[in-house]
C-alpha cells in the first residue's frame, strides 16, 4: 500500500501520486506475469504461476484503499495483491525462483508469499482456505482495537469467484457477520474457476446476493473500473475500521489469460474474451489518466519505462540471489529443531 495514504472515500479520485502508483502496479503485475511465463516456457523457471491478468485494476484499487496498518490474506493468484501491500517486486520474483532473497527464503514458492511487515500475513494455495484464517485475523484486529487507543485496522481477504462454492467460505461469511468483524471479503470474480465458467458451477451466480443473505453488507462492483472499485473498497474498509462490520465486495472482471501461466485457454468463448479485452484495465486506466489530464503523455511514458526497469531489475535480482543451502531443509519446521526427527 502507498505509505501514509489513508484511503479516504470522500475524494472522488485518489491523489495523483496514488493514481500513478496504481497505474505502475498494473504495469508491473502484467509485465512480471509475462516475463515469468516466458522464463517458464524456456524451462528457466520451475514454478506454478497464476497470472493476475484482468484483475490488475482490483489489486491497484486495493493497494490505495488499504492503509499501512491494514492486513491481507491472499491466495495463489497473489502477485498483484503482494504489490498492493507494497512488497517489492524483486522479493516476489526471487521467491518464484526459490531463492533466499524471496519473501519466504525460497521455501514457500509462488503460492505462499508472506511479508508480515508489509501486511501480507499469509497466502494459501488451497481454494477458500484463506477465509477462515481471515476471520481469525479480523478477530485479532477487533480485540486489539478494543484494547488500545491505536487506530483500528481492517483485514482484507482476496479469493476467486470459484472459492465461493466451498464450505469454508460459507462458514466464514456467517462468522464474520455474527461477530461483526472488521473484515472485507474481496471476491476477485474473473468469471472462471480454472476451466469451469461461473454459470456452470453456481446455481445463482449473483454472488453478492448470496452473501447478503448472511446478514452482511454485500455489493458487486465493476472490477474493470479501477476508480469505482477503489471507492467501493475504500468505503468497505472504512466501514470495517469504524466498527460497521464486514463486507463482501464482488469485483467483476474477466480472466484475460489461461488459469495458470502456461495453460491453454482456447475453451474461453472468444467473443467474451475479446469483449473483456476491450475493457483491459491497464489500457483503460492509461486512457482515463490522459483524457482527464491527471498525467501527461510524458509522465505515462516515464512510468512505463520505470515499470519495465523494475521488472528487469527484479528478475536480475532473483536470478542472482543465492538458493538456500541444502542444510536449511530442516530449519523453520518448528521454532527450535531440538528433539524432532530429521526423517
Amino acid at each position, binding site marked *: 500500500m502507498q505509505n501514509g495514504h489513508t484511503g479516504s472515500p470522500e475524494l472522488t479520485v485518489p491523489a495523483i501520486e496514488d493514481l500513478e502508483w496504481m497505474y505502475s502496479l498494473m504495469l508491473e503485475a502484467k509485465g512480471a506475469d509475462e516475463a515469468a511465463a516466458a522464463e517458464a516456457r524456456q524451462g528457466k523457471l520451475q514454478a506454478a504461476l497464476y497470472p493476475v491478468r484482468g484483475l490488475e485494476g482490483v489489486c491497484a484499487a486495493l493497494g490505495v484503499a488499504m492503509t499501512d496498518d491494514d*492486513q491481507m*490474506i491472499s491466495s495463489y493468484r497473489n502477485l498483484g495483491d503482494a504489490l498492493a501491500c507494497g512488497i517489492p517486486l524483486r522479493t516476489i520474483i526471487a521467491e518464484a525462483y526459490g531463492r533466499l532473497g*524471496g*519473501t*519466504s*527464503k*525460497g*521455501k*514457500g*514458492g509462488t503460492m*505462499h508469499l*508472506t*511479508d*508480515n511487515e508489509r501486511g501480507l*500475513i*499469509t497466502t*494459501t494455495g*488451497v481454494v477458500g*482456505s484463506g*477465509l*477462515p*484464517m*481471515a*476471520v*481469525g*485475523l*479480523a*478477530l*485479532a*484486529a477487533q*480485540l*486489539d482495537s*478494543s*484494547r488500545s487507543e491505536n487506530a483500528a485496522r481492517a483485514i482484507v481477504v482476496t479469493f476467486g469467484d470459484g472459492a465461493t462454492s466451498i*464450505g*469454508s467460505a460459507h*462458514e*466464514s461469511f*456467517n*462468522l464474520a457477520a*455474527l461477530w461483526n468483524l472488521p473484515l472485507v471479503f474481496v471476491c476477485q470474480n474473473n468469471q472462471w474457476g480454472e476451466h469451469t465458467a461461473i454459470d456452470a458451477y453456481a446455481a445463482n451466480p449473483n454472488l453478492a446476493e448470496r452473501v447478503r443473505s448472511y446478514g452482511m453488507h454485500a455489493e458487486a462492483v465493476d472490477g474493470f473500473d479501477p476508480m469505482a472499485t477503489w471507492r467501493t473498497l475504500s468505503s468497505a474498509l472504512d466501514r470495517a475500521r469504524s466498527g460497521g462490520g464486514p463486507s463482501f465486495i464482488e469485483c467483476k472482471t474477466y480472466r484475460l489469460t489461461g488459469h495458470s501461466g502456461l495453460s491453454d485457454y482456447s475453451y474461453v468463448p472468444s467473443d467474451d474474451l475479446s469483449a473483456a479485452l476491450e475493457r483491459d484495465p491497464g489500457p483503460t486506466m492509461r486512457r482515463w489518466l490522459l483524457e482527464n489530464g491527471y498525467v501527461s503523455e510524458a509522465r505515462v511514458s516515464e512510468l512505463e519505462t520505470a515499470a519495465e526497469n523494475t521488472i528487469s531489475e527484479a528478475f536480475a535480482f532473483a536470478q542472482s540471489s543465492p538458493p538456500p543451502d541444502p542444510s536449511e531443509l530442516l*530449519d*523453520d*519446521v*518448528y*521454532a527450535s529443531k*531440538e*528433539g*524432532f*526427527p530429521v526423517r
Partner: protein
Amino acid sequence: MTSTEVTNTQGAADEKKMSIVAALNSALDIALTIDEKVLIMGEDIADPIGGVMKATKGLSDKHGVDRVRATPIVEQTIVGSAVGAALGGYRPVAEIMFMDFLCQAMDQIVNHAAKTRYMSGGHSSTPIVVRAMIGSSNFGAQHSQALEGWFMHTPGLKVVMPSNPYDVKGLLLSAIFDDDPVVFIENMSMSYSVTGMVPTGDYRIPIGEAAVVREGSDVTLITYGAEVHTSLAAAEALAGDIDVEVIDLRSLVPLDISTCLRSVQKTKRAIVVHGSTQFCGPGAEIAIQLTDALWGELAAPVARLGASYTPVPFAAELQSIPTETSVIAAVQVLAEQG
C-alpha cells in the same frame, strides 16, 4: 506420578484433588489470566454450559465472551480462525468436541497451521492449541477414533496426549505458550474418572518428555493416554510373576525415544500399547526405532498392541481396543519368547 521437574511459579504449596476436566479448566483459567493474548474458541464453550464436558465452565463469565467464544458448528473455521488469530499475535485454543470431527479441519491443521512457519521461511509462527477428545464406543464408530497417528505423520505439529490431571495441566499450559501448533488429545473415558493431586498454580511440563510411571525389569510397556491405565492395571495384575515397567510417553511429537531406549536396554522386551489402530500406527514407528537402536540386544521382537483393523464397534461384546486382559496376554506371550 511423574518424575518430571515442576516449575511452579505461583502458590507452589497449594494442591487440590482434580479430575482431568478440572485440570483442563485450571490450565485454561491460568492461561487466560496471565496472558491477554490467550483466547478460547469452540462449540458450546461459553457459560452457562461451559462446554459439553464442562472444561471451560466459568471461564466466559470470568474472562468475557470476547475471549471465551462459543462458535457455530464450523470445525474448519474454528481451527482456521485460530490459525488466523495466531498469525495476528494471539494464542488461541480451539476446542473440538470429538477428535473424529478433526476430519473437517484437516486442511487448516495440516495445510496451514503445520506449514505456515516453513512456507514463510521462518517469518511466521502459528501458536495454536487444538484440543480434541477421543470418545467411546457407546457413541459408535464416528465418535471414538484415536487419530494421533495422522498428526505424528504431519511435520510441523506437536502432539501431546497426557494420561492424568497433573500432566494434563502442566502440558496444556506448555502447549498454550509454545510457539508451535500443538494437537492436544484427551480421552473421554478419563475425563472424570481419573483424578489426582494437582497444584492450583502455574507450572509447566515440558513437551517431549516421557515419564516412567512404573518401574520393572522384565518387560517394558510403552504407552500414552488412557492406555497408560490399562497398562498399569495389567502390570499390577502380573506383579510377582512378570515385573513390568510402564512408560507414559505423554508427548508423541517430539517423541522421547531416549527414555524408551533406557528402559528397553534393561528389560530387552517391549510392547507398544495404544488405542489407535495398530496397522501403520504410532507403535510401528516406536517399535522400529527401538529395533534399530537395540539391534542384537533384544530378547524378542518389539511387539505392538493397538486397536484392531476395524471401525470401532458399538456393541460392548466387540472389543477393538486393548484391554487389561489383552495386555496381560501380550506380556505373557512376550515374556516367553526368545
